[in-house]
């Protein structure tokens, strides 16, 4: 039940196409057969409990990690066949918001946002400043342009990172947990920004989040990742109305159900008795 929205053999309409993706580190399987289609110009949410491999999946989508098996296509290009140059060319059309912001600590806010422009373009300084300040204005931090990353709160750092991610006007924008640590006002701003960027610039967005309420408000399409697979996918309302116990449990945030809250563990009595 992975994909009913897109016609299966229409990769032209797909920004990302993942087939049978497997990934393991240190002998531990994290992803076991993920299939995922992301349609162009859509906002696709990837939800799932903490530690299921959402960040890992994003790293595989962007070629930061190599899958142990399976295929990832971005913009119709098979990542495993791309050279490093090809991958870099592809990434210039992508923006990624890292979970912790990942701002460059030796540059201030302004220079962080200007970084991709300085590396890839030769804009005159006046134009560059205009672009950077516009993006900072969009995330509400134009006044913070001379602060260093150490002087920012976690939520501010994430917003600066968002400004940096959109400064090159990417076609595909990937957000890893954009809502964590945001106050209600900035959260509303970022939510609206995701939608507005998506619609105004015609880009494709992938948003990883476990804030079900927030994300279902902006997403066109939701995927639920659990146990190394996509266990449900569809429009948000379909997910909320799902009759699968796993999906209901996650979407409603119930502690008991088939989605495990606990990391795999031995029997409690055995573990507790095994002192020394």
């Amino acid at each position, binding site marked *: 039940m992975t994909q009913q929205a897109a016609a299966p053999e229409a990769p032209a309409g797909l920004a990302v196409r993942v087939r049978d993706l497997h990934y393991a580190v240190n002998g531990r399987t994290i992803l076991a057969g993920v299939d995922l289609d992301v349609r162009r110009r859509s906002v696709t949410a990837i939800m799932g409990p903490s530690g299921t491999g959402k960040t890992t999946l994003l*790293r595989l989508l*962007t070629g*930061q990690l190599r899958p142990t098996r399976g295929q990832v296509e971005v913009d119709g290009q098979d990542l495993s066949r791309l050279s490093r140059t090809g991958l*870099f*060319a592809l*990434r*210039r059309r*992508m923006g*990624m918001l*890292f*979970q*912790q912001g*990942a*701002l*460059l*600590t*030796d540059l201030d806010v302004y220079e962080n946002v200007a*970084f*991709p422009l300085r*590396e*890839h373009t030769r804009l005159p300084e006046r134009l560059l400043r205009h672009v950077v300040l516009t993006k900072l204005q969009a995330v509400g931090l134009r006044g913070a342009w001379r602060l260093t990353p150490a002087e920012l709160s976690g939520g501010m750092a994430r917003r600066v*990172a968002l400004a*940096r991610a959109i400064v*090159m006007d990417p076609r595909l924008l990937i957000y890893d947990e954009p809502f964590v640590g945001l106050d209600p006002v900035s959260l509303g701003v970022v939510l609206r920004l995701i939608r507005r960027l998506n619609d105004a610039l015609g880009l494709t967005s992938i948003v990883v989040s476990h804030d079900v309420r927030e994300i279902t408000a902006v997403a066109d399409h939701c995927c639920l990742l659990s146990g190394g697979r996509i266990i449900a996918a569809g429009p948000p309302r379909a997910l909320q109305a799902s009759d699968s116990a796993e999906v209901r449990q996650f979407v409603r945030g119930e502690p008991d159900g088939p989605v495990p809250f606990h990391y795999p563990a031995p029997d409690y009595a055995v573990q507790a008795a095994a002192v020394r």
Partner: protein
Amino acid sequence: MRLATDLFASAQATVRAVGAYALFALRVLAAVPGALPRPGLVIAQVYNTGALSLVIIMLSGLFVGMVLGLQGFDLLQRFGSEESLGTAAALSLLKELGPVVTALLFAGRAGTALAAEIGLMRATDQLAAMEMMAVDPLRRVIVPRFLGGLIAMPLLAAIFSLIGIFGAQLIGVQLMGVDPGHFWSQMRAAVEVGDVMEGAIKSAVFGALCSLIAVHEGYHALPTAEGVGRATTRSVVISSVIVLLVDYLLTAVML
């Protein structure tokens, strides 16, 4: 039997580590041309690493020179040739102590800072973020720091030696009463361009090694606080041992 397999395993690990270093060095060298169009980045790093180590280099140079003055005077006096103090101090500083002690201090001060900085960039996803922005961290972060260290080291070693000679003069001439005319004229007559070159070559090689080790350890640090700490320690330990080993080899070749 057990010992043999352990020895074999550790030899294997050493070979692998050396291989990894060689490969990394090649990758860094291959990225050097890509970094040259932005000399500003390199100059900033020369300034960074140089400024970090300058004060300790100057202080250590002075003290080492003063000790040389004392020891040299005591030794030379037994042969009645105190006037050679200047030559002895200058040669030992230029050829040996300058490059080696500077390299050890450099590894302890600038090298650890480099390894920690880069390790932290790894741990906080800054290097991954650069990769995602289609910027090669090797070219943008590693090469400028490597070149910065490579350039800063000979300059620091020169400063160390000059201040060391001044320190030796301070003790020998001012305190012990060696004739200043003899001190300087003997030195000028005995020290040749080749001696200065030997020191310059050594310090450039040590600069390359220390910087390479520091950036390698930082770049390959485990992305945790502990991993960064370990990388920092490893960089100073490995650098120190390698500097002393290579110093022997270079001395044997150039003598």
